[in-house]
């Protein structure tokens, strides 16, 4: 390790310069560190959401359980669903996408590094804001409500009189907050405001990063990395970003409408005043269904990386897998009303949405079969990542198939709002997204640490989780078809549902135990795991051409890509039968690559850290606290304070160059110099005189 990222010492503004310690994390704009922060935050919320689920399960392990109060139960499933979807799976995908996207396409960073930091901090503060409802939220009308909220007297539901424990004072409208139940009249108090505004903030974070990722993919691919040479995970990141870009504004509007109803007396969903509760459902699911593909597509991308590597064979039907992903996303926008089959929409609409929903099975099937085709005739190595990938294919298929039974509209009239649905979506989300994410963590762990995770613990984790998972969510199919409605705090003993519920609860604890093993594995392997070297899995894609752990600059020498699976083709040729043969000098070549990547010939300039994303993001929750309490003077003050913080940060941001001038190259980063040269020859290029520096004041319009 000789020259690494060099940081300028003389600057116009005093910029953050520490590379260690808290401040370095707060001010970092490095996509890898941001990814790591996303990852730890997401995992923390996984534990929290999981603990909430365990409480739910304890309550349901017996008929007429007495473990939780009704209010606490309702709050727990609301927060469980909200947490798992918005604060676990989305940021966990974001973690991997952040860490890996630039590596996968051979870039040094994302297009807008500071915007990336902004996304993360917005997410972080949004999540904290949402969870602060446990401390500040109330289920009673706040003081000074001028006729807006709450049924009078002691009849207010949503916690109810006497249930002042903190859980019963938390959001309890379900993760899709159906109106008017989650509106001002039936959920008075502030808890649902925390929910609506919290999701608003978290959504903004995803919107910002979707733009960032899209520009990164479109403009920063390494030389030769054509779109159809990108690793599938990069493709699924792209497609997911499009889904986010087009679905988040819809939920933003819906949440604004709820906030206006709750805070300012508008009547969008007030059924007693002519508002239409079904409008909320359309808007929510117009977002909500693309959302479920936002959850699954990144995992599908991960699996598409793992399966070929451990089958030692190219991905079967690469372009079909990519296009199927795009097709899923596209079709995913046209099926939202399958969540509303029982809402009384017309038979024409029901039939049309039912058919549209079924068609999604076709591209999804293409993916499944191509994955099977990848394993077929391969040389399968069952390392832990591969086990999780195979688990994904197996378990997701089950969930997908139950999804198709929902698409059969009349069947869904029986199934909707029962545990059969709960089974479906845990199979696709847990069996799909979560298995995929864990596979990704095991697979790319070396990129983070330069070490491998322990295989034995990994396998124990996998088998226990598979067992616990099926024991938890398998019987739910049965429970649902035996008439157990979802979101039910108690069920009667006469329903005969008890034994199966007990099995489910036991399964949930087995999952918890398996997660515990994972945590032990993670933390011990970080320090003591076997060293991985450059290419522990004999992998196929260019992210493995960067050293492990990944240096701050990713690649000292950006790869020049000549084919799909570029890295593999450097190592392997094909014999006459088409079988892979390792080229003679492969090991030597790997050693050279590692050496070159660790020893940059000239200093590499990276974007400088910045305080401003952190402070910009900090302003938002402060403003939103102010909105919730805007009827009080200090609430109005909070809005102002938040606004001032954010505005000041924007101004600071706009004045601060992305990179400080460097003495050695006339103030231009290498990256920009090259772009400059590019602009000079390209007719469509940017300004030839000035550097089109990626990300100067990029957020000035957001």
């Amino acid at each position, binding site marked *: 390790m000789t020259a690494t990222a060099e940081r300028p010492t003389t600057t116009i503004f005093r910029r953050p310069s520490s590379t260690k310690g808290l401040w370095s994390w707060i001010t970092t704009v490095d996509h890898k560190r941001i990814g790591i922060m996303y990852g730890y935050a997401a995992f923390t919320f996984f534990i929290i959401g999981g603990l909430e689920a365990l409480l739910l399960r304890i309550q349901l392990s017996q008929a007429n359980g007495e473990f939780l109060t009704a209010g606490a139960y309702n709050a727990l499933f609301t927060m469980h669903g909200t947490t798992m979807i918005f604060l676990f799976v989305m940021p966990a995908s974001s973690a991997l996408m952040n860490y890996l996207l630039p590596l996968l396409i051979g870039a040094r960073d994302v297009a807008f590094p500071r915007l990336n930091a902004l996304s993360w901090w917005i997410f972080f503060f949004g999540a904290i804001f949402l969870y602060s409802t446990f401390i500040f939220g109330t289920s009673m009308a706040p003081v000074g409500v001028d006729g807006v909220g709450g049924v009078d007297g002691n009849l207010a539901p949503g916690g109810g009189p006497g249930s002042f424990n903190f859980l019963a004072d938390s959001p309890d409208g379900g993760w899709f907050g159906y109106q008017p139940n989650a509106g001002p009249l039936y959920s008075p108090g502030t808890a649902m405001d925390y929910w609506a505004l919290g999701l608003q903030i978290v959504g903004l974070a995803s919107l910002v990063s979707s733009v960032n990722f899209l520009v990164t993919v479109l403009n920063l691919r390494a030389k030769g990395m054509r779109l159809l040479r990108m690793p599938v995970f990069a493709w699924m990141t792209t497609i997911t970003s499009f889904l986010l870009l087009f679905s988040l504004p819809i939920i933003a509007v819906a949440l604004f409408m709820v906030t206006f109803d709750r805070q300012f007396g508008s009547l969008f969903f007030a059924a007693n005043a002519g508002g239409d509760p079904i409008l909320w459902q359309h808007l929510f699911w117009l977002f909500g269904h693309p959302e479920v593909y936002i959850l699954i597509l990144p995992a599908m991308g991960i699996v598409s990386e793992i399966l070929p590597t451990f089958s030692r064979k190219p991905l079967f039907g690469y372009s079909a897998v990519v296009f199927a992903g795009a097709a899923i996303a596209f079709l995913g926008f046209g099926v939202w009303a399958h969540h509303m089959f029982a809402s009384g929409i017309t038979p024409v609409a029901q039939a049309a949405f039912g058919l549209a929903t079924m068609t999604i099975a076709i591209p999804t099937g293409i993916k499944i*079969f191509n994955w099977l085709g990848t394993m077929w005739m391969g040389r399968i190595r069952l390392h832990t990542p591969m086990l999780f990938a195979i688990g994904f294919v197996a378990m997701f298929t089950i969930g997908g198939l139950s999804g198709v*039974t929902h698409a059969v509209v009349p069947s869904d009239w029986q199934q909707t709002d029962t545990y059969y649905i709960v089974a479906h979506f845990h199979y696709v989300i847990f069996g799909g997204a979560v298995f995929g994410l864990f596979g990704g963590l095991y697979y790319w762990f070396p990129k983070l640490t330069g070490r491998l995770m322990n295989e034995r613990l990994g396998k124990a984790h996998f088998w226990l989780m598979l067992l616990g998972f099926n024991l938890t969510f398998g019987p739910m199919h049965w429970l649902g078809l035996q008439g157990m409605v979802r979101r*039910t705090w108690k069920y009667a003993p006469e329903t005969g549902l008890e034994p199966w519920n007990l099995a489910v609860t036991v399964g949930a604890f087995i999952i918890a135990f398996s997660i515990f093993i994972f945590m032990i594995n993670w933390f011990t392997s970080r320090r003591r795991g076997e060293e991985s070297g450059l290419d522990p899995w004999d992998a196929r894609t260019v992210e493995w051409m960067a050293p492990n752990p990944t240096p701050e600059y990713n690649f000292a020498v950006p790869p020049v890509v000549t084919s799909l699976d570029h890295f593999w083709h450097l190592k392997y040729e094909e014999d006459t039968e088409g079988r892979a043969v390792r080229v003679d000098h492969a090991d030597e070549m790997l050693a050279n690559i590692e050496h070159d990547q660790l020893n940059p010939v000239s200093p590499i300039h990276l974007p400088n850290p910045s305080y401003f994303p952190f402070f910009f993001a900090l302003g938002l929750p402060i403003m939103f606290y102010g909105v919730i309490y805007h009827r009080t003077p200090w609430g109005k003050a909070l809005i102002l304070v938040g606004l001032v913080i954010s505005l000041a940060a924007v101004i600071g941001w706009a004045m601060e160059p992305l990179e400080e001038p460097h003495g050695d190259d006339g103030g231009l980063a290498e990256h920009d110099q090259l772009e400059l040269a590019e602009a000079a020859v390209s007719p469509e290029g940017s300004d030839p005189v000035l550097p089109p520096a990626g990300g100067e004041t990029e957020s000035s319009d957001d």
Partner: protein
Amino acid sequence: MARSRLRLVRLGALVAVTLLLGACSLISSEDQPLTTFEPAGPFAERIDNLFWPVFWIAVAVFVLVQGAILVAVFLYRDRDGSKEAKQLHGSPKLEIAWTIIPALILAGIAVPTTAAVFDLTECGPDAIEVQVTGHQWWFEYHYPDAEITTANVMVIPAGQEVCARMTSDDVLHNFWIPALNGKRYLVPGQTTELRLQADQPGEYWGHCAEFCGLSHSLMRARVQALEPAEYNAWLASQQAGATLPVEGDPEYEGYQVYLNKQCIQCHTVRFEDDSASNIIATDAFNGPELTHFASRNVFAGAILPGEGQSRGDALKEWLDDPPSTKPGSFMPDLALTEAEIDALIVWLESME
């Protein structure tokens, strides 16, 4: 290697046992009153008939995919001496096959699905209308032709179609009697329809399926199907008013409590003597009509009486403090004394 294969076998065994257990309780779904597997009328049956073929298709795809995974793992496992893989990139033919075949299967599913949607959505012309109103957390039934109102137990004639015209008084609810049909939302400000029919007399369980606030889990429903003759008798008896207790009757005291303890603010009771009737306007906040309270075998959102409880005991529990039985209940704790409760029970039990 061998050890993990052993694990696979063990897992297989486990899955098999689970399936077996599932199969066993399939047979015994009789003591599961909410099951969807025992349709008791043409509509639920139509759905059932649609479900099973789709289910078996799903099972076939399941077996295919899981089978392929297992075979691939066993056949192509990297063992000592196994050859490197042929670097196949895909196969257009296969690609087309596994696009077209699922498409055809789905088209096959789509046709009966669409037909069933249209057949099951709109009520038949001869259906008997029952208006259903959802309240937090109980169902109200109004029979417009007979002009009677009842709660929690919907009484219908066996062998005839009933058209439930539904709306809600507050938030969304979802009416579901698994043996008779699927679900339909009750939407405030709008009307939805659900066809119901039971071929045989009997009692059918149901539940509100949409989350509707604090005590959604305690918002249950019953349908009682009667022989048509019995049904007509029931209608007639419901149309009659309750007997007005006079001083000296054992029910008199309870009636006085009803008059004096705010019950009249929320509960309609119609008496034979019309002038004594206490009618709550339909647009005012109301609780279940109590005129024929004792003709219903369950009350309070069909959660009471609980298993093995007599109605008297259940009433005692309920009247003592409704929100402790049903959290958030809009019937408040009226701080009745034991004597008042006992008196009320006598009166209420008399209102057949």
